[in-house]
């Protein structure tokens, strides 16, 4: 479980096409700037969000993203949540392996995004969908 209490408004963006991936990035970037994450952390967060949004689109068949400013009592951060009701991930260990791909990509989306974030959690049920939650904390 990720220990993160919301400190501000949840912003939601539907993911149904390529242009929504761009919108998710813009939403996450605006939240990162407002929370005063460093430039490198902003870049890591937005890049991870881009990978996860594309996963939601390509593997999950679409869904939505939520961007929430949070705190763990000591530090502020940004929580990003990606929800789809697609086929789910049958073998999570395999999905986290660098280079493993089912869509002809580079197979870096999930594993790469996890490396860029501070907290990372995947809940998935085959046949029902996947929810990925991740936090980037300020330094």
């Amino acid at each position, binding site marked *: 479980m990720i220990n993160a209490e919301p400190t501000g408004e949840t912003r939601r963006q539907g993911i149904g096409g390529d242009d929504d991936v761009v919108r998710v990035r813009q939403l996450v970037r605006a939240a990162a700037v407002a929370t005063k994450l460093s430039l490198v952390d902003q870049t890591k967060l937005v890049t991870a969000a881009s990978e996860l949004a594309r996963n939601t689109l390509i593997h999950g068949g679409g869904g939505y993203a939520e961007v929430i400013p949070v705190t763990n009592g000591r530090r502020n951060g940004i929580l990003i949540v990606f929800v789809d009701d697609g086929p789910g991930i049958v073998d999570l260990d395999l999905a986290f392996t660098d280079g493993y791909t089912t869509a002809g990509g580079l197979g870096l989306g999930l594993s790469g995004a996890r*490396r*860029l974030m501070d907290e990372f959690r995947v809940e998935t049920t085959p046949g029902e969908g996947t929810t990925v939650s991740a936090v980037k904390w300020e330094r």
Partner: protein
Amino acid sequence: MDRIPVLTLGDVLLVSIQVDLEDQLALRLQEDLADRIVSTGAHGVIIDITGLDIVDSFVGRMLATIAAVSKVLDAETFVVGMRPAVAITLVELGLPLRGIRTALNVELGLAALRAARAAEYAEPEESDDDESVAT
């Protein structure tokens, strides 16, 4: 969505990406560049990514594909202007930028292209300055 302009600079094609890249736009750029290399006989491609605040695996793959396709069409590709935060993120993401050559800015990219071209033709005789590379 329109397209990203490709400028001709002597026998070099120059692309400056200034917008948040949508996937379709990136794919179109890939095709446009291949067409332009063949129609202009360009020997070099410079892609300026100063304007990109992130490079994710999709854009990274696009850059690698452009470099590979250019190579097959006898043109060398340099990616220039990568922001420091983008470089750090790319390495952490684990993106293998195979076949992509980089330079810090357009000027250094042009110089590197010229040097690469000269080296390629310098084999039989050491004649580097009369190389017909326009600027």
